[in-house]
């Protein structure tokens, strides 16, 4: 039992490794700072969400896809809300801007 779990884990890790490698090879990270104009998240159990950021430099709207649990949780309990300014890094994967870092800029 324990062994099979371990094996599964190894497989999962190897798979992840391949994924992230190909990610690095094909996509490059884009950085931006912008204000959230809209958050779309489907309920408490959502595993993905999108946020629209207005780029401070270009004033263009950029739709970012967010998949990491920590940030999703911050949308769910409203620690991150529309109007917050965000420092964001993303990669273009299959036409989507997938977030690699999504953090409020202000603090004090």
């Amino acid at each position, binding site marked *: 039992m324990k062994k099979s779990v371990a094996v599964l884990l190894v497989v999962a890790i190897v798979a992840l490794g391949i994924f992230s490698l190909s990610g690095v090879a094909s996509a490059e990270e884009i950085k931006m*700072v912008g*204000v959230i104009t809209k958050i779309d998240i489907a309920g408490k159990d959502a595993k993905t969400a999108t946020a629209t950021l207005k780029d*401070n430099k270009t004033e263009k709207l950029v739709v970012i896809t967010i998949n990491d649990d*920590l940030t999703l*949780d911050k949308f769910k*309990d*409203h*620690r991150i*809300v529309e109007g917050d*300014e965000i420092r964001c890094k993303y990669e273009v994967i299959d036409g989507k801007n997938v977030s690699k870092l999504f*953090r*409020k*800029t*202000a*603090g*004090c």
Partner: protein
Amino acid sequence: MKRTVTIASALLAVLWGAGTWGAEHPGKSQIEKDGYKGPATCEECHPGKTKEFLGTVHWKHASKVDNVDNLDPKKEYGMKNRIYTMCNGNDVVNNLKEIPKNADGKSKFTGCNTCHPGDHLNDVGSTGPAAENAIDCLVCHSTDYDFRQRKPFKNEQGQVVMGQDRSTKAALAIGKPTVKNCMVCHETAGGGVLVKRGFIFSKDTDAHAAKGMVCVDCHKTKNHKIPTGFDPNNWANDGLRVACGDCHGDKPHKSADYNRHTAKIACQTCHIPRTGGAVAKDFTVWEKGSDGFYEPTTLKKEANETVPVYAWYNKTVRNEPHFIGPKGSRKDGKSKIYPFKIYMGKAFYDKKTGQLLSMDFAPPMANGNTRAGVESAARTLGMKDPAAVAKNAVPGWQTIYFGSNHLVTKAKALNCINCHGVNGVFNFKELGYTDAEIKKLTNPEIYFNQLIEKQKEDW
């Protein structure tokens, strides 16, 4: 033997916690029936908890401190009143308020005491029935807290109030504090996400998080006293301490070669090889953001992005206007080598006394005028001629050593060659070793056989 028992029981506690996680808080049905009316609701079944909380560091942001130079042993110190350069304000001089309008005619609320679980009318260190009733129990105990409520606003009398989620819905999700409950405040310490300590507590960054442990599994809380360690910059404490050795003992390794080092080298030195967060800030010059408000200029780094500096530490602290950091030496018989995150902050010093000055953030946040912030703080503190203090203030740098106590790793722990190799992480000379000793400590004779064995195991 003893050690395995402690660990087993700690693990058991974790599993137990996970098991009861789904279990309901026994008070739930009554709270559902009567609604949540603040701490008084909790008091019905947990008498004395509110009064008890008012005596803790989390309410007072201060305590007596006995291991730091140049402090008055009779006074209390903490984020309430400390003056240093990670945050150049504090609860007193940078009290929560609406700041003057900026160039775009916009204002906002700011103040250090936004990280206090009170309502600001009952502020840091307040006492009495009103204070008891103002405690935000749910920010630490609810897993269904709506953070849109935890925001400053002005009431009808024009007073600035810190909001709370006091909904019955939030009070129905009571339990022992989760990582998030603690990180709500601790993640943004120092004025932004991961600025002060740069530690993310997740399975990717911490060996204990990977095992499902949460903050309070180590910070075992008694009557709301939360234990801390001896970070040279965590002065306020509840009188309880936590250390790696509490659970692991001082001989935690299968290998005697590692165990022989624990007398002189702290666990953190090998097991926390990286650090992170802001490395420098300039409080004398603030940068204008896209929203038209100013923030201190800050050089940020990710968790795990920087390497620590190593120094002997005997848990007493040198505290001077331009330096806060560890005291200790190889020879004092009490010190071990610890890893520190080095941070440097630029701020204003008093021309007359050479002491570090503090700052009210409201003026610089609105218009970048940092000397106006110094003047306001000097006035609040009752200094003589605040305008002159601010005008003559001299910019200068302060070096601060922060303890590095999370982001524990086993896989990336330092091994023999990381230290004894020619290009090792230690500067043996600065650590007080003689040339002859260094020659020996950096000779392969020390580690060759062990690493050959390891090489055989690995392949």
